[in-house]
């Protein structure tokens, strides 16, 4: 088959689609990966065939202007901790209006959507697999008559909010149903001669890389797939110092890559983080960029600072990790059975960290509650209490039991054929 994968231009979100793209390719399928021009280097560095579509998005401008208010609305604990049934309809509506006006149409800019539609009509993919914020993929699939599915690398919290709102509104008179997401997708689809269908928001099915216990079902068809770490686009090189066993227990410290190249605010005080690990009997490997380091007053002696090292090379040597709560770091640590202290304060980070804690594989520390003492205490606990190592190993084992990308390819082939047949029959 011909499979078109797409993710908006942001490395953290692109990374989540790479392993399945490889699997589809080595299964003999034709594979293309489309994104805004800015992401082309990242796609080709992953060894994939890139299709630049449209102009670059302006998400950073938008975040700079309205990011504060956008985040402010989404700091409600019931939102962050996945108790959406407790949120008022008004709250859900506001969330939908904010994300649909300021985020989704920005990262799915019109020229990008139109370019993706044009390419799809030319290349005629059988299947479009899209990163869950890259609704352009669903639009292009509808316009070109392809099957389409989401490819998730983080918990499905955003779909849950939207489904919760649609469920509440189903009981209202039609004039009171207000769904900006549908409004946006309807006029976007209309531009390409198609009409809105709820599967444009949720995919005809979803390939989900979240492990059991973190994965949300939401009553949607799901194909669980093992998360196989890919930590691009930085070069994955095993340095000399990583080829010997550490003398002391090794702790990884990272704030991730997204913070380095987007305008999302960093709520984590690095000095506090470094001080809290400085007097522990551990070897710390901290991945810190130039700008991050510039704000640091002192790097303790037991901390090795590197600009970049692939997590999949570093984490198998670590006894614990302290990180910002990002999806890729979280999942890579989980895949290697490394106990985590996951900071975080926004979007899906808190839910993910709390599930980790519930599964006994680590501890959550809200970024606002970060002090030297609290972080040190949590890190010592995950290092010294063997239950965390056991919990992390259990999580790793459950991930290893999930079908690999190679193993889900036949299921994807079948689902694609079925949906193609249904579309053709219509």
């Amino acid at each position, binding site marked *: 088959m011909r499979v078109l994968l797409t993710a908006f231009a942001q490395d953290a979100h692109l990374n989540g689609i790479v392993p399945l793209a490889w699997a589809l390719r080595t299964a003999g399928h034709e594979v293309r990966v489309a994104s805004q021009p800015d992401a082309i280097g990242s796609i080709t560095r992953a060894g994939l065939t890139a299709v630049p579509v449209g102009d670059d998005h302006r998400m950073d401008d938008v975040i700079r202007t309205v990011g504060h208010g956008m985040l402010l609305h989404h700091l409600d604990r019931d939102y962050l901790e996945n108790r959406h049934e407790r949120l008022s*309809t008004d709250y859900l509506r506001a969330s939908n209006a904010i994300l649909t*006006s*300021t985020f989704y149409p920005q990262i799915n800019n019109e020229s990008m959507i139109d370019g993706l539609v044009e390419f799809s009509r030319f290349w005629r993919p059988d299947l479009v697999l899209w990163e869950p914020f890259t609704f352009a993929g669903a639009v292009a699939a509808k316009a070109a008559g392809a099957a389409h599915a989401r490819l998730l690398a983080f918990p499905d919290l955003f779909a849950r909010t939207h489904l919760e709102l649609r469920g509440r509104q189903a009981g209202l008179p039609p004039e009171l149903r207000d769904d900006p997401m549908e409004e946006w997708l309807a*006029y976007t689809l209309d531009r390409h001669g198609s009409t809105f269908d709820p599967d444009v928001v949720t995919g005809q099915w979803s390939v989900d890389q979240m492990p059991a216990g973190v994965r949300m079902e939401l009553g949607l068809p799901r194909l669980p797939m093992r998360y196989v770490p890919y930590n691009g686009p930085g070069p994955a090189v095993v340095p000399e110092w990583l080829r010997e066993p550490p003398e002391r227990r090794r702790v990884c410290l990272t704030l991730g890559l997204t913070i380095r190249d987007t305008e999302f605010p960093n709520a984590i005080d690095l000095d506090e983080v470094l001080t809290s690990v400085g007097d522990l009997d551990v070897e710390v490997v901290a991945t810190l960029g130039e700008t991050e380091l510039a704000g640091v007053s002192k790097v303790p002696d037991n901390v090795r600072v590197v600009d970049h090292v692939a997590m999949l090379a570093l984490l198998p040597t670590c006894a614990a990790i302290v990180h910002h709560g990002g999806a890729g770091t979280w999942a890579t640590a989980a895949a290697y059975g490394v106990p985590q202290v996951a900071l975080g304060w926004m979007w899906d980070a808190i839910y993910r960290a709390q599930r980790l804690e519930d599964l006994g594989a680590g501890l959550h520390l809200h970024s606002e509650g970060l002090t030297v003492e609290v972080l040190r205490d949590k890190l010592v606990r995950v290092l010294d209490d063997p239950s965390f190592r056991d919990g992390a190993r259990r999580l790793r084992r459950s991930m290893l039991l999930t079908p690999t990308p190679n193993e889900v390819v036949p299921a994807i082939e079948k689902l694609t054929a079925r949906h193609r047949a249904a579309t053709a029959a219509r």
Partner: protein
Amino acid sequence: MLTEQTNSELGRHLLTIRGVQFIFGAQGDPFARILRAGDDDPLSHGERAREQGLHESASGAWVTASHTLGARILDDPRFSARHPEEGPQHHPGVDVWENPLLCHVVPVDDARLNLEPAAYERLARIAAPLLGAGALADRAADVERVYREAVAAADARFDLYRDVAVPAALTVVAELLGLPPGGRERIAELHVGLATAFDAGHCPQQLPVARAFLEAETALSDELASLVASDRASGLVGLAGADPQDAVTIGVLAVVVGVEATATAVCNAVETLLAHPAQWERLTRDPSFAAAAVREALRLAPPLRFESRIARESVEFDGQTVEEGRRIVVLVDAANRDPEVFPEPDAFDPERPEGRSLTRTGGPADAVTANLVRMQTEAAVRVLAERRPALQIGAEVLRRARSAVLRGVLRFPAA
């Protein structure tokens, strides 16, 4: 206005402004919260706005909930519905990420809601033989008959907005304008789109709703122009010396304001009076109480919750300068409960001195349409109190979505 914008262009424009309003609302800005038109009580945002005095909202507007300031602004011709630039008032293609210009969300020019204050004053004089207090008083019996018939035709359980207020106002306006046969049915069709006229310029409507409004305002304007040109709107023919364009404008305003603002005023007045049973009971005994009852009810529940103007000169208020070109908003519902002017502001007190309420049922066009709305509203409550003295609200009154200005009625179950 039939805009050149594609659905995607107009849709993006509306959604972006809507999102920005929500974001400013999340940051706690009272006027942004009002513009969001959520489930929360707009009066609570008005209270907070009053505490802040005359202030700049994150939305770029100056905002006041003070009665004293509000009265000055609404009576001052330096504050206009429009910017000085000729042509339709609309700001498409403005990069809201750089400069959030959140006024005139869509052009309401064909609905004639973007004229200069002096133009409305002039039109009010021209329209006096048709819409002036004296002219309408002469037709009081006709208007009352229309409402009587509408109430008589309603079932025991009925919808006050859909079954009485809108149909009666359509008939009154059609008769007043002397529309030819089929004219009433035609403005009834257009009214579906026109109902959002007061909201659409301030609170982005859903794309199909915005489109329906833009198409309806242009259709109304074109069709009235054609009727005036062929002398087939007999009520407008009689306006001595009126330029045909003025006659069209007067006709458009009679439809745009005379139907939806009237229907909202009727519903708001009835809802408020039924919430004060002693007042309703007094009305059932004394029909002459209608004028004072409506005046006080619409002070508490004005059909237009706020008024928005553009400062055409820099104007100083208590040491603060509202610069030329800036938007200024009077939160009428809050100003009407300003405790500095209204003792016990939340109490229903029909004995309050006249002339204090800032309620303007026609917005910037109020000089032209105020009598038309007022006399219909009085007739409606008088007839209802007489014919349905045991009137009750049957179930929750539902207000339209995204109706930040009117809080327009969707369902008003009554029995």
